[in-house]
């Protein structure tokens, strides 16, 4: 923090003085001191922007040069479909006709099973993470924590939990627990607990303290105050944030498979590493479809739940 002195907003009007003149004088003073801070901030921002452009080499010519190569890659994983055989059934020997959708999606059963696993991973991780976040959010809220050190401890905990990217946690857990969805679920749950813990505690900090005082005045404990003074106020927001996090976690759980932590990501990694053909595209399309469908359902659920909760 700078020790720059801001003009104090309070001023005195002596009897007989013109209030408008006095006000304008103090307003001008206040604006001068703010102007200095604003210019300092603008210069600092421009400097940081320039440095970050230089470091990341975010130059338009590089961007233009790299653009065609993105399409080049997609060219290699495009399905080789033939109009005549598009809907061709399996042959007598049980094999699909090359060039048909059936051939392209011959592993559909496996994909669907993995997509289902991905959604289950996201649900479990969100529930686990939201439960931990819920418990942490009360001590992590500045206005609610019973003791200062508990507040600091709870806040640092949520920071550590969300500080490490889930793919790294997943990597460590795969090493410790072995390949499979358990590592993925735990990794996402840990990150979710940190991220939601922060959001939940901010919701708590904005809650009205009047009901809490009401509960205190009847001889309630800290637990009573939280349960009846705060929870009913913040629950709709908690539900909304949790569902939003669920959408994010569906995306995350289709990524953590890359390090062996279960879900459709494992198959995507597999197809990219071993085949690098149209199967990559087949899996990608399914992931995009899944995420879109989940987003749509979750959004509906959110408005429905929050709308109803608000009536209570």
């Amino acid at each position, binding site marked *: 923090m700078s020790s720059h002195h801001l003009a104090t*907003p*309070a001023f005195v*009007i002596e009897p007989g003085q013109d*209030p*408008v003149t*006095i*006000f304008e004088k*103090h*307003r001008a003073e*206040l604006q001068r001191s703010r102007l200095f801070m604003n210019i300092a901030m603008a210069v600092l921002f421009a400097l940081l922007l320039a440095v970050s452009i230089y470091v990341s080499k975010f130059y338009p010519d590089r961007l233009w040069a790299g653009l065609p190569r993105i399409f080049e890659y997609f060219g290699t994983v495009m399905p080789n479909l033939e109009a005549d055989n598009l809907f061709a059934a399996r042959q007598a020997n049980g094999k699909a006709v090359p060039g048909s959708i059936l051939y392209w999606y011959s592993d559909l059963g496996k994909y669907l099973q993995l997509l289902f696993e991905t959604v289950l991973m996201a649900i479990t991780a969100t529930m686990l993470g939201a439960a931990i976040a819920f418990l942490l959010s009360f001590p992590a809220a500045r206005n609610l924590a019973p003791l200062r050190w508990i507040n600091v401890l709870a806040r640092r905990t949520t920071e550590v939990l969300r500080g490490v990217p889930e793919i790294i946690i997943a990597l460590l857990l795969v090493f410790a627990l072995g390949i499979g969805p358990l590592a993925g679920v735990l990794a996402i749950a840990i990150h979710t607990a940190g991220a939601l813990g922060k959001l939940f505690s901010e919701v708590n900090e904005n809650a009205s303290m009047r009901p809490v005082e009401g509960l205190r005045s009847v001889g309630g404990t800290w637990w009573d105050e939280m349960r009846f003074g705060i929870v009913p106020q913040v629950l709709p927001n908690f539900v909304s944030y949790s569902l939003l996090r669920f959408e994010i976690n569906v995306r995350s759980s289709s990524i953590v498979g890359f390090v062996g932590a279960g879900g459709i990501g494992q198959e995507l990694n597999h197809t990219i590493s071993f085949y690098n053909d149209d199967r990559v595209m087949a899996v990608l399309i399914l992931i995009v479809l899944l995420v879109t469908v989940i987003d749509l359902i979750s959004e509906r659920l959110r408005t429905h739940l929050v709308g109803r909760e608000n009536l209570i």
Partner: protein
Amino acid sequence: MLEFSGLTKAFGNHKAVNNITLTIPQGQMVGVIGRSGAGKSTLLRMINRLAAPTEGQIRFDGRDVSALKGRDLLAWRSECAMVFQQFNLVGRMSVINNVLMGRIFHHSFATAMLQAFSAEERALAIRALDRLGMAHTALQRAETLSGGQMQRVAIARALVQRPKVMLADEPIASLDPLNAKVVMDALRRINQEDGITVLANLHTLDTARTYCDRIVGLMSGAVVFDGTPDQLTDRQAREIYGAEADDAFSEGVTSTMLTPRAQAADTFDSAA
């Protein structure tokens, strides 16, 4: 002149305001009294159309303001200021900017968003604040003020609208006796000096008696009394508040006034 004819507001089957017909001449100070739920707030909020009437009309100087739409409705609201029980200021904004919000109707989208108020407008706002003894707080955030101070800032905001009518919805219900007096004195002074019609919902009878030219008593959404404070008898007051005949009914009990009128208090005590 403000005229209501057959004014009704229904919430489902319940009629909060039921067929009210009244005429209020320009410059009158009217106190609206009644139990909670009698329809006082709904009546006031229909005038500046924070609530829409179900039936009937509100006319101001012959113009039907209950049918206004779009820009005309906003123009009417800017002429018909309102003061709220909970002040309804923007806590994180400075006092002066809160007051300048009263000029917002006269600004374009751009000048409003940029808070580009002219020196004349600032002077107008400061003079309004000074009238209420609040000019020295102009550069503070509104949330740093006490309740009584906030209500005075809210009245200053209403004043810079240069309104013809000022609606006050329980303006002193959240204030201590001293601040209640300051706020009611300010409303009365504005009414007398500027000739602004004031309609105030009041929950205490003696405040209405002390400050208003005329008292309107509401019960279940209908007018049950309309007259001067002197015409309001003990029996009628009991009827408005629905007090049982045997119950003690004292104006002093409901008072937030510093010096309740001794005479009125005596009358009610002896009747009880």
